[in-house]
């Protein structure tokens, strides 16, 4: 490593350390975390057994590259946030992030994941690979239906997560029709949708994150994932009616 690189690496390291300490202010308004569709299975599991097993099924935007990527990616961040906000409950998040699978392929592999993990809640992040590969929206819709049927048949709750807001690739990657399908399915089936697209768009508008930035460092990506993990935890807690007040009365 040349001296300059070493200096840069040190700066980056210190920068990360500072970033990790300061909690980023990435509040999300309630309207972006709607809780009309509830997570009955999750509420029951917390009330009866004080535990929550979650499986995250997703593509590469559910992970972070680099060393320790998994530690900083939103599935782990979700686990940490839920532990913090639901003390006294055993929280376990298992992530399944196969490379480059379409929703159809994920729907195929869901039964095995359900059988292996016995999750109470499945978080299904979908759409990006389908947009990349130009899958027909009709097929996308059918695959989602198929997967959600499998999750329901296994007795688990589901949360769908849509794409990231990515302004720099917006003109090249047509995600809008896929986001539309997911919104529509969420409404039709009464499934909770974590609207990552709208939430990241909100952060971008508010100046919370500069999502246009051409940075190759990990710091911002990690903060975004941390914030996604926490927002997701909030929506799960809202939708499963696990807010603190209620928790105390059920105990």
């Amino acid at each position: 490593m040349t001296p300059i690189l070493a200096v840069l690496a040190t700066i980056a390291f210190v920068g990360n350390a500072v970033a990790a300490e300061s909690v980023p202010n990435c509040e999300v308004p309630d309207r972006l975390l709607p809780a009309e569709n509830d997570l009955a299975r999750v509420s029951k599991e917390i009330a009866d057994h004080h535990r929550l097993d979650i499986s995250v099924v997703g593509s590469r935007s559910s992970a972070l590259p680099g060393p320790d990527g998994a530690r900083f990616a939103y599935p782990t961040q979700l686990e940490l946030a839920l532990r913090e906000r639901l003390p006294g409950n055993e929280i376990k998040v298992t992530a399944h992030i196969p490379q480059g699978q379409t929703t159809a392929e994920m729907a195929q592999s869901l039964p095995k994941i359900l059988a292996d993990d016995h999750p109470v809640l499945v978080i299904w992040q979908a759409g990006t690979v389908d947009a990349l590969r130009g899958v027909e929206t009709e097929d996308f819709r059918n695959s989602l239906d198929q997967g959600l049927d499998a999750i329901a048949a296994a007795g688990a709750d589901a949360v769908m997560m849509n794409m990231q807001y990515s302004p720099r690739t917006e003109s090249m990657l047509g995600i809008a029709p896929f986001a539309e399908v997911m919104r529509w399915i969420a409404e039709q089936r009464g499934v909770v949708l974590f609207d990552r697209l709208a939430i990241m768009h909100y952060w971008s508008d508010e100046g919370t994150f500069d999502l246009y930035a051409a940075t190759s460092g990990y710091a911002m990506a990690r903060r975004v994932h941390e914030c996604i993990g926490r927002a997701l935890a909030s929506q799960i807690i809202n939708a499963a009616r696990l807010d603190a007040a209620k928790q105390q009365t059920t105990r």
Partner: protein
Amino acid sequence: MSKASPPQSAASDRDLRLDLFRGLALWLIFLDHIPENIANWFTIRNYGFSDATEIFIFISGYTAAFVYGRTMRDRGFVLASARILRRAWQLYVAHIFLFTIFMAEIAYVAATFDNPLYAEEMKILDFLKQPDITIFQALLLKFKPVNMDVLPLYIVLLLVFPPVLLLLLRAPNVALAGSAIVYAFAWKLDWNLSAYPNGVWFFNPFAWQLLFVFGAWCALGGAGRLAGVLHSRGILVVAIVYLVFAFFITLTWRFEDLDRFVPGWLKDWMYPIDKTNLDVLRFAHFLALAAVTVHFVPRDWPALKSPILWPAIVCGQHSLEIFCLGVFLAFASQFVIAESSGGPLLQTGISVLGILAMIATANLISWYKGIETRGPVARVKSRDADLAGGEA
């Protein structure tokens, strides 16, 4: 009064309303193609089911039939077909030109943008790794970047237009019925053209041809036959009621609180409103818009000659050039907005500047064509084909 030369009204039978609304549609398409744009709020897609694409395709069909129909009647099938195909070729070249600009933009982003947060999304740039396949597929009109779907649709529609036009001239109602049957079959049997690397055309030509042929049918006397219906009060009321209904439904997409007023059965019946296959609700919305427009904007509306409307009219008269310019400007604007992480002020400024550039260019083309035709070796040629119709 107006100092600038008024919009070409030389041809007395020229319907300036077509130019006006096509010009407006071109502006709206430009605005809609900038994803991060506050000015998008003004475009009609936020107020109803159909959008500027419907207007553009309908008017294109109308003008194509208007101009090439006359050629076909006066000079025969072969010459008219040759002109139509020449037009298709011009559109093709324009499309490839836009594709090149798009490639340049993508290549730039690929070379400069590297954010681990978007490792997955950046995969879209992988096609740069196989330019042989990508460029070939683009030449075949199978690989179409986002927002570059309208011209390929238009090209395909023109390619098959000669026999359709012939039938429209001989038996217009049969042609229109045939078009409706193709539309129905496209829905029933999932007809569409395949795209690269996957999937189908975003604007399904088998479905969208209905609007194009309907426009052509109107140009060849259909509008006259419909006049009685169009001017009846009953139709006007139905159209307005439907437009208000569509407006309310689009509001529920933006404001979730309103959503609960939409009954479940209506949603089940109505959604999804499919743009790819020109959903019947979209088509009906366009018809309603057209009916209301025709009612309130008569052909001899004085404002059509006023300087206030000429910017839109002159843009509509050079639709191919202005359409391409609009797509290019949308790319460029997006680029500027992305590079500067721009806010609403910049977006508004860029939108206004873009439209001004479109107007200026359209005027320049008008001026140049005027000189050319008035020049010493004035080619008597088809003024119409270049104005009302060449711009089909």
